[in-house]
């Protein structure tokens, strides 16, 4: 017998370890139990039970997070939404769909495509992420430039609050100016306000054929002019940048030859609408002009979808290629126009304090979002390297503050960035967040110790 009956639950060590953590490995997985509700009503029952018995609940999706938002390390009960994965309704006129929170995002994308529609928010872990988790973390990824973040696609939410109240937020309406839009408080709340059990998501028409450019910049100062020109002249879906070091690591890990000379300090993979000859011509003209202006030194364009995929690999494979060097990672953002200046300042900061460290840069330039990866030198122990990272962090974040940027652009706060929130958010803001949390969850049963 379990106190959760008739709701399915697991308490064996293997399950606790599996469901108690996300993609981070900094905290032990020590939940008391994992429960698998199958309906909004069962989630309500769990909240009532938690209030009665003083349990803490950790809402849990695909657990692909990178900030520990779904980690349960102090005897909480993990509420896994994975058994709630039904697609309730697919509406081709609106167009949109309503689904339970546990539907994998990859599945959502596939179902939309099958109906001749498109769910454009996409990131490396989308296939194993779940809808509810993607909303609670406001997932971004590689096509934010064109389509925005998950927030921009949420049209309605069913939420269970900390008092067991069921809220129907916005009910799929396009227009609804009736007071505070609580839906937007839930998006990106990382499970501290309530549990999302169902969502209505907007869909769109699929974009026309895409081509991929791989371009090499003459220098740091060329990145913004190139981005500006290409965005003005083409319909961009992605503008993803990386540095020369990234290429070396990807080439080492995949055994592929880089299609360009590899002499440029920075590169970008650019995806754009390419329905025919005209767009192709325009891309070439732009390249010619930017090459003449001395901004671009090299470039190639995909001639087939196979080549498009191969070009994307040079951006997509970076993270896994550098993982053996257990990088100290930061997911930072500043205003788009300040990216080059910010990158330069960070580079100088690292080389000043740790000249022996290598930094690999990649990110979503079009969103002002940089992924900074400091690599562990081979002769450094992981312990010493982490200590150096901890020593480096306040300096990095102080720079973020000076640039009026964000210490977590798309990975959220969770446990990882909790102590650093103040670099980006004011005291007054954090206090208001706490008050909002108290209004939704007066007894503090949801995701204790996370975010603020």
């Amino acid at each position, binding site marked *: 017998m379990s106190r959760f009956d008739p709701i399915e639950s697991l308490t064996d060590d293997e399950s606790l370890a599996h469901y108690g953590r996300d993609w981070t490995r900094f905290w032990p997985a020590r939940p008391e139990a994992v429960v698998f509700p199958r309906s909004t009503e069962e989630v309500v029952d769990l909240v009532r039970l938690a209030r009665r018995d003083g349990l803490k609940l950790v809402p849990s999706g695909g657990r692909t997070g990178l900030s520990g938002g779904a980690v349960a390390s102090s005897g909480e009960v993990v509420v896994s939404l994975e058994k709630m994965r039904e697609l309730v309704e697919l509406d081709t006129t609106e167009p949109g769909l309503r689904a339970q929170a546990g539907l994998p995002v990859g599945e959502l994308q596939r179902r939309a495509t099958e109906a001749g529609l498109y769910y454009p928010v996409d990131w490396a872990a989308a296939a194993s992420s779940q809808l509810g988790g993607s909303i609670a973390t406001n997932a971004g990824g590689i096509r934010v430039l064109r389509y925005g973040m998950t927030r921009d696609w949420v049209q309605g939410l069913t939420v269970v609050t900390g008092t067991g109240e069921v809220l129907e937020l916005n009910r799929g309406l396009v227009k609804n100016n009736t007071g505070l839009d609580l839906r937007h408080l839930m998006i990106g709340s990382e499970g501290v306000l309530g549990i999302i059990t169902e969502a209505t998501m907007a869909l769109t028409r699929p974009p*026309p*054929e895409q081509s991929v*450019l*791989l*371009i090499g910049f003459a220098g740091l100062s060329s990145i913004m002019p190139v981005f500006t020109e290409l965005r003005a002249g083409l319909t961009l879906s992605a503008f993803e940048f990386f540095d020369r070091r990234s290429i070396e690591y990807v080439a080492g890990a995949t055994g592929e030859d880089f*299609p*360009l000379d590899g002499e440029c300090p920075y590169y970008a993979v650019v995806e754009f609408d390419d*329905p025919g*000859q005209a767009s192709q011509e325009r891309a*070439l003209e732009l*390249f*010619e002009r930017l*090459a003449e202006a001395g901004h671009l030194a*090299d*470039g*190639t*364009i*995909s*001639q*087939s*979808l*196979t*080549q498009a*995929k*191969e*070009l994307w690999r040079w951006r997509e494979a970076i993270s896994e290629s550098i993982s053996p060097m257990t990088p100290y990672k930061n997911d930072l953002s500043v205003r788009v126009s300040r990216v080059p200046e910010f990158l330069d300042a960070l580079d100088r900061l690292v080389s000043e304090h740790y000249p022996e460290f290598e930094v690999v840069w990649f990110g979503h330039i079009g969103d002002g979002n940089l992924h900074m990866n400091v690599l562990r030198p081979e002769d450094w122990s992981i312990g010493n390297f982490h200590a150096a990272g901890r020593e480096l962090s306040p300096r990095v974040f102080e720079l973020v503050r000076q640039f009026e940027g964000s210490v977590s652009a798309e990975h959220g706060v969770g446990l990882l960035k909790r102590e650093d929130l103040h670099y980006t958010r004011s005291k007054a803001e954090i206090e208001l967040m706490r008050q909002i949390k108290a209004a939704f969850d007066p007894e503090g049963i949801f995701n204790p110790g996370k975010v603020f």
Partner: protein
Amino acid sequence: MKILVTLKRVVDYNVRVRVKSDGSGVETDGVKMSINPFDEIALEEALRIKERGEAEEVIVASIGGDEVQQQLRTGLAMGADRAIQVSADGDVQPLTAARTFLKLVEKEEPGIVFLGKQAIDDDANQTGQMLAALWDRPQATFASKVELADGKATVAREVDSGLETIEVDLPAVLTSDLRLNEPRFVKLPEIMKAKRKPLETLSLEDLGVERAGGIEAVSYEPPPQRGGGKVVESVDELVSELKSKGLL
């Protein structure tokens, strides 16, 4: 020596092909079109031969409407010296293609005609062989390695039992298999240069090609839908399921 490489415009390998609702063919409207991957490999090999100094000129040729100029331009950007479009509308069957290439062979007198082993749209695997017969020259098909010396080509062929290495006298027809090489990416500056390279347009009539009409497509239909998967609860259930389907 000249090398003539043929390029066919086909639905991109990565596109999920859809049959037209009336069953009259395959949907190509708004579908990504590319060079037939085997032809691209043939061109890559021709370019490498030229870069080794074993050929002087690489000519790319394609049969079809003006849309094939896009694939010819790609071929020029990869490094071919000039291009020939043989304009023709409608269905071009392998025998028509072979007769057309024979006319180009008579005109250009190449040492090698390099084709893909087959085009991925109709999978006919006939044009190269027919051309060799019409031209009355040797053929080395399914090439996975090509070496040239003393007016001969030594070609490793992919056959069912492994690799077969043969030697043929040039001029000859070669057709490429998948593992021959990995085609290069097109550099943007090369695309600019390719715009100034010559692209000649001829027609089937100019060349005096008699169209073949031996094959008539009766109907097209998609493959049967695959049934959904099934989640089993235990190893025992899996084993008995497999046994019941005669798979164990």
